[in-house]
């Protein structure tokens, strides 16, 4: 047993109940093969309609992958499967080598180190920006701790770092609901950063941003790649072009093509799907 694990246990987090949102060091993720996310043969159907049809996909550690595809291609359903919101009818989903995502709840998966940004920016509108980030901070997330937790200097430091990164320094005490759409997107990304995830799932992160903001987002994502793995779903091709090396095209719940953006854009099936016959 590695020494860090023992230490955590001694602090009393070793409860056997899987329902607890345990603080687990995400170095626990077994990355021995360099793959951080592995989906195999995932099928999800809603009343006969197959949202995902034997989808197989793998993401390398530290990779920045873009997923594109027309509406209804299964992008959001895929994210639901990874984050535990939807249980696949069949197939398997592994985080690293050993963690079976299909058997875990959303909070467990989040605690393992998968962060997710929604299509519609979802922040706590009636909390201040500071509180939003503070809640996201990687800490013990159990009730017991929350009852005695205090905002200490470490928390303040971490939050102000992130505020700087997402350029919301001046807005710390503002209600999140009063931010602009683009600022909310940034705040949500900032919350993901506070979580210190291994893998970030970002659903249309630049929708509603100004060109300037989009550019800065691209920079941010590129700076994150390497230490984190990122999966970005996006419609904005210019943005995709500016950040991704490898692009996966989904269609009707399956991988239609995969490769560099140039390569997939020239594939005849992709053109057909996007432009119609």
């Amino acid at each position, binding site marked *: 047993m590695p020494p860090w694990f023992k230490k955590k246990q001694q602090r009393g987090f070793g409860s056997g109940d899987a329902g607890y949102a345990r603080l687990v060091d995400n170095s626990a993720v077994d990355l021995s093969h360099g793959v951080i996310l592995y989906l195999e043969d995932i099928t999800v159907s*809603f*009343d006969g*309609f197959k*949202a995902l049809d034997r989808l197989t996909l793998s993401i390398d550690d530290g990779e920045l992958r873009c997923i594109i595809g027309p509406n209804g291609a299964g992008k*959001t*359903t895929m994210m*639901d499967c990874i984050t535990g*919101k*939807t249980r696949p009818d069949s197939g398997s989903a592994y985080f690293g080598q050993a963690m079976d995502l299909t058997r875990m709840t959303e909070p467990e998966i989040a605690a393992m180190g998968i962060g997710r940004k929604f299509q519609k920016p979802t922040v706590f509108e009636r909390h201040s920006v500071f509180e939003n980030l503070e809640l996201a901070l990687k800490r013990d997330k159990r009730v017991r701790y929350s009852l005695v937790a205090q905002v200490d200097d470490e928390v303040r430091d971490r939050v102000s770092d992130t505020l700087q990164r997402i350029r919301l320094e001046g807005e710390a005490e503002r209600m999140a609901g009063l931010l602009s759409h683009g600022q909310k997107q940034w705040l949500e990304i900032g919350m993901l950063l506070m979580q210190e995830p291994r893998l970030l799932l970002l659903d249309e992160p630049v929708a509603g941003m100004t060109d300037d903001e989009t550019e800065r987002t691209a920079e941010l994502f590129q700076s994150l790649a390497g230490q984190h793995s990122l999966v970005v779903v996006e419609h904005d091709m210019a943005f995709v072009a500016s950040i991704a090396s490898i692009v996966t095209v989904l269609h009707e719940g399956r991988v239609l093509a995969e490769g560099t953006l140039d390569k997939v854009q020239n594939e005849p099936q992709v053109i057909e799907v996007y432009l119609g016959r």
Partner: protein
Amino acid sequence: MMTKFLMLLMLLGGSLMAGATLDAALIHTLANGESDEKIRAIQDLGALATPEAVLVLKSLSDDALFVDGEHVFYLNGDQAIDAVTGLALTPIPESSDNVVINNRVRSELNTALSSLKLFDPKPSVRRKAAEALLNDVSPDMLPVLTKAVAQETDAGIRELLLLAVAQINLGSPEASLRLSAVQALENSSSPNARNLLTILLDPAHEPVEAVRRAAQASLKSVDNRLALSDALARIFSGISLGSILMLAALGLAITYGVMGVINMAHGELLMVGAYATYVTQGWFRLHWPQALEGYVLAAIPVAFLSAALVGVILERTVIRWLYGRPLETLLATWGLSLGLIQCARLMFGAQNVELTNPSWMSGRVALPWGLSLPWNRIDIILFSLFVLALVWVLMNKTRLGLFVRAVTQNRAMAGCMGVPTGLIDTVAFGLGAGIAGLGGVALSQISNVGPDMGQGYIVDSFMVVVLGGVGQLAGAVWAALGLGILSKFLEGWVGAVIAKIILLVFVIIFIQRRPQGLFALKGRFVDN
């Protein structure tokens, strides 16, 4: 034995005395005597069997025989007819009293009248009299019955009469008669026959073994038939309860299920429908009394429209401002329900109001295996099918239904396509309210109509809709039927209270297991 003799007399010589006046002393005993004396007078009059005597007995049975000092009279239209002379009394006596009879006298009177009825020209009257006899037949009626069997032309009624004769013959001293009676009773499904047969199982009562064995066999077949009819009756009562639950919940299935409005005033819309029925009845009484029987039918559109109107007003004034805020809607509509209750109380008084079942909703219909089902419940089941069909057609076969479904699925898109969403909301809510009003018509026929009546149905209605699955009309139907039948079987087993508690717990657990109800729509949009 007295009766037997008198019956014979009546049959043989009754008609000779037609037109004659009645014995004044007899009539006065009938009017003023003690119970025992009255019974004797009734028997005497029954024996006379003249039209005059029958009229007097009938008036007595309808509480329409009056006494005023020395005059005993009954009413015929506007005239008071002297019971003794058969002549009209002028002027009509002012202060008069009913001739009071108690149940014992009334029962005697019924026997006298029903024996007379066995010879009525109308088969339906004869059938009823024969059916009544099956449950209460006494040995001294044998001669009358034999005579009636001989005269009877209708095979069905004859069979009934023969069963009655067989019941009497079970007590016959001749073993062969008893045996054939026992065998005849194999086809009976009257509990009375069952009791009589049970007695024959006892060797102390029945010395002949063959008869005992036959009785055993007959008893078994009667028992089977009774058990079957018992089970069928229970299923029927479950379906009946289910249809009532469905009528109560169907309006909610539209307002809540389809539109997503948590309408806690739903029960009060039922109440509006019920009061509309009451008002219709009052109108008929006042303006069109000869058609009073049909008031329930006339109340259907009235109830629909008045409840729909109330619904539209609620939607326009309150509910429309709360779309998308379900918990606030819940509280506001609860407030509305309190207001509606108090309105009803101020308009109609705190007391329940009186609604008369029309004759086609009273009484019961006899079916094979001794099963007999009450008309009002049958009518309500049919009515619920009608309402269900109406809702189905409205929602699936009309433009209105199309618009409603479009608006509820994607308001913005529907608006873009030119659907007047605001108007559709109002109309749809009005429709749901109107359907609730129809439910109120049905409830008014089996239950109390009072200001608080709606409160009793709100929890049940929500249970049905939630159990069936929000947005699923078919789900609501199955849920209502299922809950109805389940509750009736549980009730027979553990009693009404525990049955209700079990059902509530069942629904709570069920929702925990399947939050989307019986007929869930699966998909991405469910949670959002």
